[in-house]
């Protein structure tokens, strides 16, 4: 292993060490609690404020997991809004929760989940999306086709992090 590989390994260790691992601070817990309360609020204005926070604030995978865990307990209209917000958040930690929403009764919720997969889905979701694009309702077909288009566009470029890991592997084998 040459020196650049060692340096690269050090960089990754430092970068991973610096990443926020979750809500370690008291303020984060309070913030998450407030957002959760707002998302479940019966007041539409307050709920929208909470959903905006889901989209833009409280970074970290633990926060995303907590938001996604709200989905089963919400009414269909709010489920649609939260799924859209989780899609905009773009953290694939929400993917299992969103995939579970593909099995619910309400068509609008299923369509929202299909839409969200465009941003948080992976290539593994391709077959399910293709199936819905072919056999779903009008709303589902449209959502699934849109997600398939975006997933395909995303697949054209390998993310830099993956390219870096591939390079690391090559360095290790030489």
């Amino acid at each position, binding site marked *: 292993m040459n020196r650049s590989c060692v340096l690269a390994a050090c960089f990754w260790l430092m970068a991973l060490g610096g990443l926020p691992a979750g809500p370690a*601070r*008291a*303020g*984060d817990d*309070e*913030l998450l609690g*407030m*957002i959760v309360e*707002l998302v479940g609020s019966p007041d539409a*204005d*307050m709920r929208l*404020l909470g959903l905006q*926070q889901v989209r833009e*604030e*409280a970074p970290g995978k633990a926060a995303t997991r907590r938001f996604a865990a709200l989905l089963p307990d919400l009414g269909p209209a709010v489920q649609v809004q939260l799924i859209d917000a989780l899609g905009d958040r773009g953290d694939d930690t929400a993917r299992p929760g969103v995939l579970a929403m593909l099995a619910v009764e309400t068509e609008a919720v299923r369509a929202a989940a299909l839409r969200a997969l465009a941003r948080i889905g992976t290539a593994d979701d391709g077959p399910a999306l293709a199936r819905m694009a072919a056999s779903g309702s009008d709303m589902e077909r449209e959502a699934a086709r849109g997600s398939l288009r975006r997933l395909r566009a995303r697949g054209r470029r390998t993310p830099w992090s993956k390219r870096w890991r591939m390079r690391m592997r090559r360095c290790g084998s030489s």
Partner: protein
Amino acid sequence: MTSKAIGILTLAAGLAALGGVNVFAEEGGAGDPPALDKAFETLQTYDWGADRSLLNPIDEAIIATHGDAAARQALEAKLLAVVTGETTRAAKDFACRKLRTVGTADSVPALAALLPDEELSHMARFVLERMPGEEAAAAMRKTLPQVGRRFLWVFGKRRVTQSTLDGDLEIGVIGSLGARRDAKSIASLTVLLADEDAGVACAAAGSLGLIGTPAAAKALGDFAPTAIESLKPAVADACLVCAENLLADGHASDARALYELLKTEDQPKHIQVAATKGLLAVAARK
């Protein structure tokens, strides 16, 4: 080319460069003195609609005197003479605009004297609002009601003098003190919250919000529950601005107290939403 020739050429180039510097040095300082004098002469009778380019030497002198304190002082004195002299309103307006760039504490007394002037108060504040140093704020503060010292409380009510300005002029000064975030005005502004002129009370609330210190927050927080209905929107708005400033300055607990005050059911929905957003910002800042 011999080395001697190169040396001569280098020397010549150096002398030429120094000569050029010298020319600029002469041009610097007061700009073009005869043209400047003529411009000030023109300014005495200048009015809106007249040829503005005749005053350009004054602008050029401001640029040329940058970094030259003595020249700037001379220029400031000339501009002050216009402000205090028997000149047109347009001339005084022009001089005030230039004083905003070159004005120092020396200009404060002359500008403060314009504050009660209905036509020129605004231009005086235009200069004082941005002028660095305590003198400018003190001059504006002096026009507000003065709150008596603590020992006077022994005899009952605090002694509060009247404002020296009326109506819109007072509102203007209140706004300028807020824009300066002048913490020494808090006591006077707190008195003005209860002013019978709603415009003055609204302006006082707004300025306390802009000042945004814990003391200003306390004044607003104490006043908010007792504010009359017509003042409530302005007070709520001021509380939001104050809380934002507190949070930006690191006083999270004071900001939280104000946001909590605004989150109550008796506030309009948009204020409740804004306060909730503020509380989220406080939690995120922790």
